[in-house]
C-alpha cells in the first residue's frame, strides 16, 4: 500500500473509527454518572475522542523507523480518548468501568502500576493505556464497526498528564539528540510527580475517611429504610453535617443498637412512615439514628447537635420523648 492508497482507505474508514470512539466515550461517561460523578469536576480536562490527523498517521506509518509490517492494521491509535482526573483512585474508578464492560475486549494494557513493579529503578512516562475492540460487530446508525476496530484509551492523573504533555513532544519527538542531563531532569520530575500523586491520595483519604464510611452506616440504614418503610430513602447533604458531628459515637455496634431498638418499637416505624409523607427528614435513612438519639441518647444532643435545635426537638416531640429535663 502506498501513501495515497493508505490515505484513501483511512478517509473511507474514518466514520467507523469516529463512531467507535464516540461509543466508548459515551459508555464510560454514562457509567461515571451512574456512580454519581459530576463529569464537569471529575474530569479535569473535558473528554473528547479524537481521530488521528492525516499527516500524523502517514508520518507514523511511513516515516518513523518503519516498524510496521502492515501499518494500516497495526496502528492502534487511529482514534483515541483521554481521561484526565485528579487522583490515582479516580483512575481506578475509570479502569474498573473499562475492565468490566462487556461491549469491548482488550489485550493486556499498559499499566503504570505494573511498570513500576517491573522497573522499580525507572521513573518514566506513566499512564494507563488500553486498546479496545468491539466484542462483536457493532452497528451504530448506518455505520458498521467490525471487531478489528481499535481505539486507544488513556487514563491519567492531571500531573501525569502535565509530564506527558511536556515530554511527548519535547523529548520523544525531538529532532536533536537530547542531553543526558535533560533526560535526568525529566526522570526526576516524574519521581516528584509520583510522590505528589501519592501525597494527594493520602490527603484525600485523610479528608474523606470517616467512621460513617468505615462502618458503612449510611448504606446499612438506607437498606433498613427500604426494608422497613418500603420506599427508597432520599439523601440530603445536611445529613452529612449531622453524621460528622456524631462521628465519634459511630462504631461497629451502633447499627445493631439502632436495629435492636427499632425491633422493640414497631410504633416508631409507623411514626416514620406517617411523618415521611410531610417531613423531608423522615424520608432519609438518618431518621432511624435521629429517633434513636432523641429517645435513647438525649445527653448527646445538648453539646453536639450541629444544626438548628428545633429539628431534633421536633423529632423528640413526635417520638414523645421528653427532651428537656429540669
Amino acid at each position, binding site marked *: 500500500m502506498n501513501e495515497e492508497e493508505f490515505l484513501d482507505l483511512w478517509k473511507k474508514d474514518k466514520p467507523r473509527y469516529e463512531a467507535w470512539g464516540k461509543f466508548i466515550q459515551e459508555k464510560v461517561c454514562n457509567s461515571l454518572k451512574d456512580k454519581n460523578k459530576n463529569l464537569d469536576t471529575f474530569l479535569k480536562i473535558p473528554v473528547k475522542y479524537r481521530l488521528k490527523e492525516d499527516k500524523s498517521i502517514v508520518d507514523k506509518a511511513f516515516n518513523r523507523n518503519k516498524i510496521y509490517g502492515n501499518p494500516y492494521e497495526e496502528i492502534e491509535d487511529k482514534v483515541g480518548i483521554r481521561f484526565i482526573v485528579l487522583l490515582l483512585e479516580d483512575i481506578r474508578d475509570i479502569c474498573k468501568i473499562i475492565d468490566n464492560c462487556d461491549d469491548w475486549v482488550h489485550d493486556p494494557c499498559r499499566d503504570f502500576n505494573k511498570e513500576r513493579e517491573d522497573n522499580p529503578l525507572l521513573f518514566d512516562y506513566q499512564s494507563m493505556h488500553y486498546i479496545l475492540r468491539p466484542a462483536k460487530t457493532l452497528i451504530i446508525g448506518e455505520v458498521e464497526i467490525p471487531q478489528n476496530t481499535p481505539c486507544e484509551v488513556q487514563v491519567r492523573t492531571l500531573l501525569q498528564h502535565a509530564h506527558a504533555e511536556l515530554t511527548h513532544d519535547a523529548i520523544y519527538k525531538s529532532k536533536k539528540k537530547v542531553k543526558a542531563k535533560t533526560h535526568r531532569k525529566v526522570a526526576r520530575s516524574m519521581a516528584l510527580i509520583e510522590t505528589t500523586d501519592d501525597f494527594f491520595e493520602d490527603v484525600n483519604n485523610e479528608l474523606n475517611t470517616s467512621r460513617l464510611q468505615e462502618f458503612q452506616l449510611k448504606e446499612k440504614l438506607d437498606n433498613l429504610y427500604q426494608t422497613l418503610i418500603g420506599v427508597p430513602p432520599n439523601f440530603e447533604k445536611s445529613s452529612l453535617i449531622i453524621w460528622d458531628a456524631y462521628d465519634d459515637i459511630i462504631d461497629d455496634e451502633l447499627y445493631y*443498637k439502632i436495629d*435492636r*431498638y427499632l425491633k422493640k418499637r*414497631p*410504633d*416508631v416505624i*409507623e*411514626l416514620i412512615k*406517617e*411523618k415521611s409523607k410531610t417531613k423531608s427528614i423522615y424520608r432519609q435513612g438518618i431518621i432511624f439514628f435521629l429517633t434513636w438519639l432523641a*429517645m*435513647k*441518647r*438525649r*445527653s*448527646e444532643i445538648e453539646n453536639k447537635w450541629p444544626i438548628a435545635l428545633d429539628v431534633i*426537638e421536633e423529632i*423528640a*416531640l*413526635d*417520638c*414523645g*420523648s*421528653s*427532651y*428537656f*429535663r*429540669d
Partner: protein
Amino acid sequence: MQFLNPVINRIVIHQIYKKNKDEKLKEPPFKGTELTNFEDSAMRNFTKRYDEAIGENSRAIEMLIDIDRNDAVIQNVIQSIHDSDDDFIDSSFKIAKKLDKAQDQPIHKQGIVVVFTGKCNYPARDFLGIIKAETHSGYEKIKDLKTGKISLKFIEEVLLTPGTKLYKSVAFLKKIKYNPNETDLNKNWEVWVSDSQVNKAEGKAAAAYFLEKFLGFIYPQTDSRKTKIFYDVTLQYIQHLDIEQEKKNDYLNALTTYLKVDKSNIIDPIDFSEKYFNKEENTGYLEHLEQMDIETSSFVKDIESIKSKLKTRKLSFNGNIKIIGSPEEFKDKVSFESIDGEPDKHDNIPKWTKIIIKDVIKSQE
C-alpha cells in the same frame, strides 16, 4: 409514657383558687366557657411542655386507679373523653371542681386547670390530659422601637414556662385492648403522673391530695421488684466497670445513698446515672439497661426486698478476710487505695490494698 405523634384536638381551661388562710374560705372555681384555640406555634409549645412532663424519659411515674373509689375522677374522664365539644366544657369543669375540692388546705396553690383530649401512639389511642399549672411571676422583654433600648415589664402571673416543677401533669391513656364492657378500670386505662412534689422528702404525703384525693390513684404493687432489679443491675454494672477500686467504692456508696438515704420517693435511673456517672459511664449504663431490657422510666422506690443488702457494705479479700460495716459508717470511716506490693521471687509486683479505718480496734477474737 409512650407518647408518639401526639395530636391534641381540644383544650379547655378552668381556674381554681387558693384557700384564704384566715377565713378558710375560697372563691369557687372559674369555668372556662369555650374551647381554647391555640395558634400552631403555641399548640406545639403546649404539646412540648406536656411531653416534657409525661413523655418517655420524663420523670412521670405510672400509677394505678383505685378501683374501690366510686367518686374518683376516672368516671369524669371517661365521660369527658367521649363527650361532644359542648359537653366536654361541662364535664371537664367537673374535673376541675374535683381538684378544687381536694385542695382543702391553704398550702395548696391556686392555678389554672387545663383539660385536653387527643390521640397518640400506634395504633392511635385516645388520651385525656390534665395540667394543673401554678402561676408565678416573671418578666417580659420590651424593646423600644425608637431607641432600641431593652427593658423588662413585670408580669404577675406567668404559666407553663419551661420547668416541669411548676406544673403537675396527668395522663389517662386508653389501653390498646380497651373494652367498654370491662369492669376492671386498670385493664382499660394506663395512668401516669408527673408531680415534682412526689420526688421530694415526704413527697408522698404532700402529693397525697393530688394523687389520691383528687385522682384516686394508688401506687403500683410491683415497685419493690422494680427497685430490686434496679439495685441488682446497677450493682452489676458498677462491679464490671474497668475503674480504680476507690472509684468503685464511691459509686457503691452513691448507689446505697441513692436508695437508702435520699429522701425522694422515686427511683429515676436516668437521674441516677446523670448525677453520678461520667459521660461515658452514663452512656454505658443506659446501654447496659437497654441490653437487660430494663425501662428507664421513673418508678416509686420500695426498698423492702433489698433492705438487708443495703444494711452492710462489704470488702472481701482472698483467705476469707472481710471488712463489713454499715454503709453510713463505711462512707465516713473507711478509705482505701490500691498500692504496689513487694516484689515476689520472680520480681512480679503484686497489687495490695491500703486501708485506713478512722478508729481504734475495739475488740479482737
